[in-house]
């Protein structure tokens, strides 16, 4: 199987190194031409994102040292660049690509953005007629594997940022957020992100209160909410569903004494409070009240970390699934290499060819 991958990624190189080797979208057609010009390269594809730059090639460059490949492509490497490169051949290359597409090699395990990035890289290469039968089959297979890994394992499940954990919890308490009344107390960066997250999930009634009314108005404008004076926030409290606090008050501003009388009129409507302030704005005793759920920064952070941990635990299962597909791909390569066992392989590839894809004859 003469398919190889040469590259560098966030696992082997710092951002300063990675940015020197990154290839912008507009430069891809030229880069693909240069790649095809390297001796021995029959098919080529470049995946360049902020976390990795990888060259997938088919042809007689399999045993080329990675540094030599990079020298041929970029010309003029710096001293000390060499250790950041890696080269993978045959089934190791296939296994690596399947892991990349499935998000297992990403900085945030299980993220889905990489899938689209690889797909766009593949489409560019197809447009430039840089791919052939082997890379077409390999990448189409990788998209199938990526989808299967995400749908049959929990590698992409669970929120991994504080903001999305809070919004997920809110949805699990109230169901849809459209009818929820949300108040953001203190217009800092974290609460701003939180307010935006709530808005993207459908929240319509967002109230912003801040010591500086101008800042509150600005955030209210951005989130389509309403600004209220800081002295008036307690008046709005009675029919509130979600409270996000991030003030710089030196002591708790939401206490049991303030909340308990309000709760009596709320019936069984739950109250969700998110405290992202340090020191905390909400007295921890408030969490003990019936129907009130207070989550501070530590609690949200710990949930995000547990989700990340759960995703990492899924990697073993994902690798098992990927290994099966690597064997399948190997079998396909062996069959198509031997025309006696698969006489039509060279003329009629067993995969759907996208518009503009390089033909079998182009090999």
């Amino acid at each position: 199987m003469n398919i190889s991958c040469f590259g560098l990624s966030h696992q082997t190189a710092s951002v300063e190194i990675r940015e020197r080797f990154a290839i912008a979208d507009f430069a891809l057609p030229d880069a693909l031409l240069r790649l095809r010009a390297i001796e021995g390269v029959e098919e080529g594809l470049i995946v360049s994102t902020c976390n990795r730059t990888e060259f997938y090639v088919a042809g007689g460059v399999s045993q080329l040292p990675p540094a030599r490949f990079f020298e041929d492509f970029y010309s003029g490497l710096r001293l000390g660049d060499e250790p950041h490169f890696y080269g993978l051949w045959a089934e190791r290359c296939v296994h690596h690509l399947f892991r990349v597409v499935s998000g297992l090699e990403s900085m945030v395990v299980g993220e889905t953005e990489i899938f689209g990035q690889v797909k766009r890289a593949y489409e560019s290469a197809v447009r430039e007629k840089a791919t052939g039968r082997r890379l077409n089959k390999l990448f189409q297979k990788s998209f199938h594997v990526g989808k299967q890994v995400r749908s049959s394992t929990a590698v992409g499940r669970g929120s991994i940022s504080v903001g999305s954990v809070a919004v997920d919890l809110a949805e699990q308490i109230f169901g849809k957020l459209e009818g929820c009344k949300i108040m953001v107390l203190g217009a800092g960066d974290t609460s701003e992100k939180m307010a935006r997250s709530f808005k993207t999930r459908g929240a319509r009634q967002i109230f912003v209160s801040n010591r500086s009314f101008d800042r509150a108005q600005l955030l209210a404008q951005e989130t389509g909410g309403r600004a209220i004076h800081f002295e008036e926030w307690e008046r709005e409290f009675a029919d509130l569903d979600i409270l996000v606090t991030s003030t710089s008050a030196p002591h708790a501003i939401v206490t049991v004494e303030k909340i308990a009388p309000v709760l009596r009129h709320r019936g069984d409507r739950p109250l969700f409070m998110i405290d992202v302030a340090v020191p905390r704005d909400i007295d921890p005793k408030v969490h003990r009240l019936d129907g009130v759920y207070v989550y501070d920064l530590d609690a949200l952070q710990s949930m995000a970390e547990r989700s990340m941990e759960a995703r990492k635990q899924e990697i073993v299962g994902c690798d098992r699934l990927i290994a099966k597909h690597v064997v399948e791909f190997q079998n396909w390569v062996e069959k198509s290499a031997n025309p006696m066992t698969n006489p039509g392989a060279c003329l009629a590839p067993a995969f759907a060819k996208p518009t503009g894809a390089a033909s079998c004859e182009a090999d």
Partner: protein
Amino acid sequence: MIERSRAVLLMHLDFIGSFIFAADQVWIWLAAYCFVLASAYSAYTLFAGKFMAPRLTFGLVVAGFVCQTIFLGIRGHAVGRCPITNFCELLTFLSWSMILIYLAIGSSYRLSLLGVFTTPFASLLSIWALFQPEPQAVPVKHPVNPWLEAHTSFSIVACGAFALAGLAGLMYLIQERQLKTRRPSSVFFRLPPIRTLVVANSRLLWLGFGLFSIGLGTGFMIGQDVDWLKVAWSLVVWALYGGILLARSRRSMAARWVATLSIIVFGLLLSMFWGIRFISEVPPVR
């Protein structure tokens, strides 16, 4: 030739019919089997964090419900009245009522996961029904009393609603506990939102209370020997549920307590169902 074929066909249908009627318990076995399968599958998908195929669970629940309906139909035909003449039929009718209400409200309240909790309970009731000592149908000796029919059926369907209210309460308590410990597991994100459960619990309590009140009212119209022990027990249950609903509507009871009490009172109702036969002096009305 045609007549002979028709005769053979009729003979076969007669044979199949007599088999079905003779072995009507087969339908409870089948229903129990469907509910056990649905429970096992739901539990597996819920706790293993796998994707659930809701259609499969729903299909099994519907299949179990159909089997129960056939059993009750056959029994109703055999006894000549509403088939609640022994404990086996009573348990089946209770389970059937619960599934009926689940099928009616499950999808409308986005509570499809209520099935995860409903199916194990339905399985338990079906298996319990199978092991009752008096499972055979006994035809009615007296003319059918419509008040008695209304009383028994309304009361048992009400119990089905109370059972579902208890299950919604149980789900609420699980969700509440996970939120309070601040370490929600994957199960938390698969169960319905806590607010939806509060609303469902409350509506099911009102539905059950309304049906139970009708059942109680029609019970006084039966006009036969009154079993005062049963009347007293029914009034206690009615008062307990009424108290919960009153406290809830006056906002003087937290949702957690409403959920807890809906489980406790249903447990009491179920245990009394079983125990009253041993302490009651009046034999069951047939």
